[in-house]
């Protein structure tokens, strides 16, 4: 039961990550890329949670804490950069 549902969830998350990467490459403007990177990190953390629920290994949980911290830091830094330099 949990095996099947985590497989489907991982497939959906992989598709979502691929769509985020497409948006990051196509861009449009710099904030688009930052937004895509932010949601990509959210998807990565969710994928780690699904993997942790599937394998029941607690190693993934530590990586999740670090990844969510890093995502917030990066988004904050780049948004300050955009505000000073303009969205090119």
């Amino acid at each position, binding site marked *: 039961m*949990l095996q099947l549902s985590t497989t489907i969830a991982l497939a959906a998350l992989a598709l979502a990550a691929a769509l*985020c990467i497409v948006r990051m490459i196509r861009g449009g403007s710099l904030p688009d890329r930052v937004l895509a990177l932010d949601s990509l990190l959210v998807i990565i953390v969710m994928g780690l*949670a699904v993997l942790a629920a599937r394998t029941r290994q607690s190693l993934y949980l530590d990586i999740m804490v670090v990844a969510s911290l890093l995502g917030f830091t990066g988004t904050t830094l780049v948004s300050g950069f955009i505000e000073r330099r*303009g969205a090119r």
Partner: protein
Amino acid sequence: MIEALASILILAGSTLTLIAAIGLQRFRDVFARMHVATKPASLGMALTLIGAVIAMAGFGHTTKLILVILFQFLTAPISAHLIGRATFRAGTEMDPETNFDELASRVGPRPRRSA
């Protein structure tokens, strides 16, 4: 029974994220994309992580997962607000079909740059 509940929560969270990623492709400008991209950052993540909490019993695991949920609920609105503010103040063009600039009457004309 517990596994079924965890499965439903995990599937709901990942489906929401997939829908948001599709919206990231289909919406027209940065502000509309921001509207769709910040939903799974809190609700989808909370659903998936609560599913993981139910699937992995144990005090240490639950504590770490709840910590991630709390941190995400604290930081997701802040980072979305920061991106939106920076984008608006940098003068990114809105799509002509959006045409819904509530702040324009309050902050005056802002520098118009091409996106």
